């Protein structure tokens, strides 16, 4: 049972330290907006990254020709990243679905395998080891190991040492196997991972536990012992080493093996996070050996440490106990008295802390901005006004349940901020829309009227241009020089045609000379028109090309105007209903959020109050014990003092007896002398003195 508890903790420890990295891969950037998503993801601003990625994805899916969008190049990665980011934003339910979607056939095997690993992690986080193993089984043989190493982890982008895909899969499989009770399988996997440098300490720890759980206790203890003796420099691993030694020590304590327990207690660093428990245990081991003086060595160190720590509180009782056993009852009584003072003060502090939490100050402090910047904020929290004594709840605050609830609470506060901001923005947008409407609406009808007229003229000119173009095209096939005659020529030809008509109907009206002149003129104009036809046709084409350029400009202006007119309308039209709907949804989300946030806050407060209450009850028990122990110490001290006094008095009485004998001898001499001289009686005084000494002794005994 001891090791089962530690196993879960260690597994989580490993999983958080090793699996904090995202699976976002390093790729050549093809879309700036995807780059922006990465910018936020790399800063661990998961909400911002997810919101942008969701927007990009939804916009992409609404496009008619989505293949032309540069985001298309990142699509698979984006869909995979959604799952990864959701997982980091602790949206496990959605993350699982998103990642599962990438597990379909036809996907690149490397991406598919990464998706399976990510999914396995989601399941592991959800405490579902069976599904973790199922997801890991979906991983197929790697096609090319280097591809994973090249593209695998965000850590690589951050310049950290690359992790291999295979190792991660194997380690997670081992952890899940331990959780499902498949210890033999876990042992087999972990044996193979023993040489992995990045996992070294964790592998040994879990291997030791798996061996113990599989019934191979001796071997398991040897593995843990190996970890307990390792030379390490990394702080995390040093803490794991201390923890292993502490667990081993208590294991041996449990099995009454004082010698080994002592060795493991001594291996725990004196300044490490487990040193208090180790010092306490080391003292008890010395007590078990009957060496109360030796027990005082570690306990005296612990005695000077922060009084809020429960090992220190226990040692406040243990030290006077040891002094008592060493017959230093006076010291013991003083120390019990000191312990009682400390306990009373701490109970008062705990009561105040509970009251503070009930007033809601704790939740306010948790949302303090410093918490995201100050690494040591939990401890420093106590420095804030009206905040509880956080040293009592450090362990609680480091626990997975509290951390999860706390992060959720912070996320909810952040979401509340987003909703408030959006609601405020919507009010501004509505005002902006109204200003735009007030400006545009009176202008648009006038503009529209002018536009309709211009539009009709433009259309007419365009038609004319089309006719001209058609005519010119036809003239290339069938030349029509008259079409290119100038207006003067056309007028002259009309006059000539009128004369010709007269000549045809009544030739007598016109003289021969005029008729000759008409014919000559006809020939002259026709000659001119036909001889210049080619040049005129060329000029006409050139003019048409020039016209086309002007028409192109016209079309650009026309389209620009259409867009501007459309934009002007769109700047205030079509927003009312969406804004109203979005506001309704925001209010609904705000209401729900408020309720859940209150529940989450109460949960955190309850957790903290329960912890403080538990500590207070323990202190109250200590107080009672200390009171009895103090009374007993006083008794013993008094009795010892009394015994000493009696001994002293007895010695004095013996001395007095000796003196009495001398006196008696002298008395006999005196009596003899009295007989000779009966006026003197010194013996009467001596008896009185003896009586008075005797009564003092009786008084002492009576006391």
């Amino acid at each position, binding site marked *: 049972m001891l090791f089962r*508890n530690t196993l879960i903790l260690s597994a989580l420890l490993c999983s958080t330290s090793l699996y904090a990295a995202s699976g976002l891969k*390093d790729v050549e950037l093809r879309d700036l907006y995807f780059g922006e998503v*990465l910018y936020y993801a790399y800063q661990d601003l998961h909400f911002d990254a997810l919101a942008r990625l969701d927007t990009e994805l939804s916009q992409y899916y609404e496009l008619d020709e989505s293949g032309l969008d540069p985001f298309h190049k990142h699509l698979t990665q984006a869909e995979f990243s959604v799952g990864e980011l959701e997982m980091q934003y602790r949206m496990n339910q959605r993350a699982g679905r998103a990642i599962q979607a990438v597990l379909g056939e036809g996907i690149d095997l490397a991406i598919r395998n990464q998706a399976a690993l990510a999914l396995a992690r989601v399941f592991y986080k959800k405490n579902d080891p069976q599904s973790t193993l199922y997801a890991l089984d979906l991983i197929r043989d790697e096609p090319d190991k280097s591809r994973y190493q090249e593209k695998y982890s965000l850590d690589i982008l951050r310049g950290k040492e690359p992790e291999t895909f295979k190792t991660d899969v194997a380690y997670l499989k081992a952890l899940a196997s331990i959780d499902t009770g498949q210890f033999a399988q876990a042992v087999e996997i972990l044996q193979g991972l023993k040489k992995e440098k990045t996992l070294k300490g964790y592998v040994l720890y879990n291997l030791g536990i798996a061996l113990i759980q599989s019934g191979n206790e001796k071997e398991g203890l040897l593995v843990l012992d190996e970890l307990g003796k390792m030379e390490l420099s990394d702080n995390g691993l040093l803490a794991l080493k201390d923890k292993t030694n502490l667990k081993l020590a208590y294991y041996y304590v449990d099995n009454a093996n004082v010698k080994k327990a002592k060795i493991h207690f001594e291996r725990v660093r004196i300044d490490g996070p487990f040193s208090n428990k180790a010092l306490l245990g080391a003292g008890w081991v010395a*007590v078990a050996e009957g060496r109360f003086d030796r027990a005082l060595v570690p306990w005296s160190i612990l005695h000077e440490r922060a009084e809020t720590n429960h090992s220190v509180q226990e040692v406040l009782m243990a030290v006077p106990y040891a002094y008592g056993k060493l017959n230093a009852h006076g010291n013991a009584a003083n120390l019990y008295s000191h312990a009682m003072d400390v306990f009373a003060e701490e109970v008062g502090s705990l009561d105040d802390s509970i009251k503070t939490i009930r007033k809601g100050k704790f939740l306010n402090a948790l949302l303090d901005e410093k918490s995201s910047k100050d690494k040591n904020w939990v401890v420093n929290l106590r420095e804030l006004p009206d905040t509880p004594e956080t040293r009592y709840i450090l362990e609680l605050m480091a*626990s997975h349940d509290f951390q999860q609830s706390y992060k959720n609470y912070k996320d*909810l506060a952040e979401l509340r901020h987003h909703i408030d901001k*959006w609601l405020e923005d919507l009010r501004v947008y509505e005002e902006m829309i109204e200003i735009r409407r007030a400006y545009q609406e009176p202008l648009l009808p006038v503009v529209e009227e002018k536009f309709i007229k211009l539009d009709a003229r433009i259309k007419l000119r365009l038609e004319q241009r089309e006719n001209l173009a058609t005519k010119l095209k036809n003239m290339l096939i069938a030349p029509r020089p008259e079409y290119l005659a100038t207006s003067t020529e056309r007028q002259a030809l009309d006059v000539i045609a009128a004369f010709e008509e007269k000549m045809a109907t009544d030739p007598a009206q016109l003289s021969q000379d005029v008729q000759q002149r008409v014919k000559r003129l006809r020939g002259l104009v026709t000659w001119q028109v036909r001889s210049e036809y080619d040049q005129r046709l060329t000029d006409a084409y050139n003019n048409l090309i020039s016209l086309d350029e002007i028409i192109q400009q016209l079309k650009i202006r026309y389209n620009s105007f259409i867009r501007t007119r459309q934009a002007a309308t769109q700047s205030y039209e079509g*927003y009312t209903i969406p804004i109203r709907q979005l506001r309704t949804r925001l209010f609904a989300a705000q209401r729900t959020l408020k309720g859940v946030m209150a529940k989450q806050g109460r949960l955190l407060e309850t957790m903290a109050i*329960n912890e403080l209450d*538990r500590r207070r009850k323990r202190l109250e028990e200590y107080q009672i014990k200390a009171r009895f122990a103090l009374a007993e110490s006083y008794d013993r001290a008094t009795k010892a003092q009394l015994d000493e006094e009696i001994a002293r008095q007895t010695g004095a009485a013996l001395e007095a007896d000796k003196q009495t004998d001398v006196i008696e001898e002298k008395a006999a001499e005196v009596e003899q002398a009295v007989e000779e001289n009966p006026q003197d009686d010194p013996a009467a005084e001596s008896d009185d003195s003896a009586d008075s000494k005797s009564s003092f002794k009786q008084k002492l005994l009576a006391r």
Partner: protein
Amino acid sequence: MLKNLFARFFIPVFLLVNTIPLSLYAAEVTQEQIKGLDEQVQDIKKDVLDLTSELSRLEEKLLFPSNTQVSLFVSAAADEGFVLDSVQIKMNNKVVAHHLYTFKEIEALRAGGVQRIYTGNIKTGDHQLVASFIGRSKSGNEYQRSENFTVTKAVGPKFVEIQISGNSSSDQNISFKDW
């Protein structure tokens, strides 16, 4: 004797420091409660994310219509020796953006992220863009650079990437990529 001592002292100590799971400390808080609340929080996150996505699109449509939209992005290739302090952007001789970088932001840029530093509206046609940065090397030497670029705005939205890169901290330059 030893057994008695263990029973009297070690077992309580042992229980005290090791075997009481934290969940038991908070007797009134059950795992079901924590899990249930966590699921509710996840639901809210999903709702707010969906809403944010819709609102962002509405905001873009309202404030930055595609025919006038211009967005400027900053990227900084990984150079461990160079620390980017600030970037300033001028458009048509007006300062439109100025940003001081945090450590995390610099890391994100180095890792390949791209920062959208400015989104605004401009007319179609040519616009003068001046990008400047201030940075320093690890030894503390300060460097400043400034470069000009002509942004030609057409009908569609315009995206320009301002790239800060170089072979060494003293050799950091600005280049522009028209997307």
